[in-house]
């Protein structure tokens, strides 16, 4: 990887450079694999790259880094992803 010698804010790719951002999550995406039709819209739209595409085009969610934005649930055409609150209200 090429590094630049300029005094400005350049950061280089590294997994979890900001720590485990999954701890920021308030709503958690829950995937119902039985409903999934492998269209991969969630994988395309996830802004954080936390939808993991498997070899057979099924998907999993990396909860270490998923911030719970809900875009995947929103773009899912078959409503296979639902957003659930992380901690229930008392």
């Amino acid at each position: 990887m090429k590094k630049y010698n300029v005094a400005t804010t350049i950061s280089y790719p590294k997994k979890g450079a900001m720590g485990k951002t999954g701890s920021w999550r308030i709503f958690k995406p829950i995937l119902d694999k039985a409903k999934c039709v492998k269209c991969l819209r969630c994988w395309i739209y996830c802004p954080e790259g936390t939808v993991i595409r498997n070899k057979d085009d099924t998907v999993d969610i990396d909860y270490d880094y998923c911030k719970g934005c809900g875009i995947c649930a929103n773009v899912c055409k078959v409503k296979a992803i639902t957003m659930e609150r992380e901690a229930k209200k008392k």
Partner: protein
Amino acid sequence: MTIMIDTGNYIAAKAAVMARPAVVPAYPITPQTTLVEGIANYVKSGEFKGEYICVESEHSAMCACIGASAAGVRTFTGTSSHGLLLMHEMLHWAALARLPVVMCNINRVIGPGWNIWPDENDSISQRDTGWIQFYCSSNQEIFDTVIQAFKLAENEKVLLPVMINYNAFILSHTSMPAEIPEQKEIDDYLQKYKPKWKLDVNNPITFGNIILPAAYEKIRKDMQNSSENAKKLIPEIAKEWKEKFGRYHGGLIEKYRCDGAEYILLAMGAIGAESKVAIDNLRKNGLKVGLARVRAFRPFPKEEILKLGKQADLIVIDRNISVGSEGALFSEVKAALYGKSDAKVYGFIAGLGGKDVPYTDIEIICKKSINGRVKECEWYNLEGV
């Protein structure tokens, strides 16, 4: 070399195109309009081969400059007054990102009180953005400074954006002859731009990420160091330009008849040019007055001004007002002398709202100062207050 007789804006357009930027985002505003129109004419003639982007605002124009520059190409744009103010956030952004964007700003009054005439409050209010600021006093100087600006901004010891300021209408819309070198000479002088960092899909990086306090402070200090480097480079570039192209407009300041002067007048932009006539007349009358036209306001030439302050008393004309304080140049001149010189410094506010400042008025300003019949900071020839 050819002689081009044209307006400041068309001559700036010629210079910009000869520097071969890859991207020129443009949003028109009076009195800058004919600058971007001039570049559009070169698109039509085929002389400008870069991307000309008609953006929807000045904020977008600066964003497009930043985006293109971050992708590793040379960029240029122009604006004026309210357009410059709308860019304000992105001016800081370009400087902190260390992107060598070059821009002309045609100094125009800020509204309300809608007014399109010359006044330097627009660019003075951007002085803390990290941009290098030049103030020009002739169309020839505009041409030469635009080319020199790319050389300066892209120097790896600088990497700061450069703003070339010149007065609305007095320069932007007035035709004067300017010597234009051949394209090959400009190409030899201004080598192809090699970015010091860039956004590249083959070498992915994140730019502008979160940064902790200690690291941020280092970035600011590096900008300050780079600006100090620019202070050394500006006179060197001006000297090299003189050797190559035979023209010289001064380094950080342009001195005129300062030898033996007991009073030195400091001014910027078109008033700086007009002052030469006043100095000639005062000298004819036996008054020992010289002129130091401040060409670079950022970085501020405090060492050179201190030298002047050790030689003479100083008279400062500001075509701007920092409301609640005084003229910006006046403040900075005094700060440069503080504790090191006993020179008297007289400040005048003149020509706000585009009010004409002829050499006759400049002579009166100098004579009043020499006679000591002035307040510390005076609004010259203010009507009806």
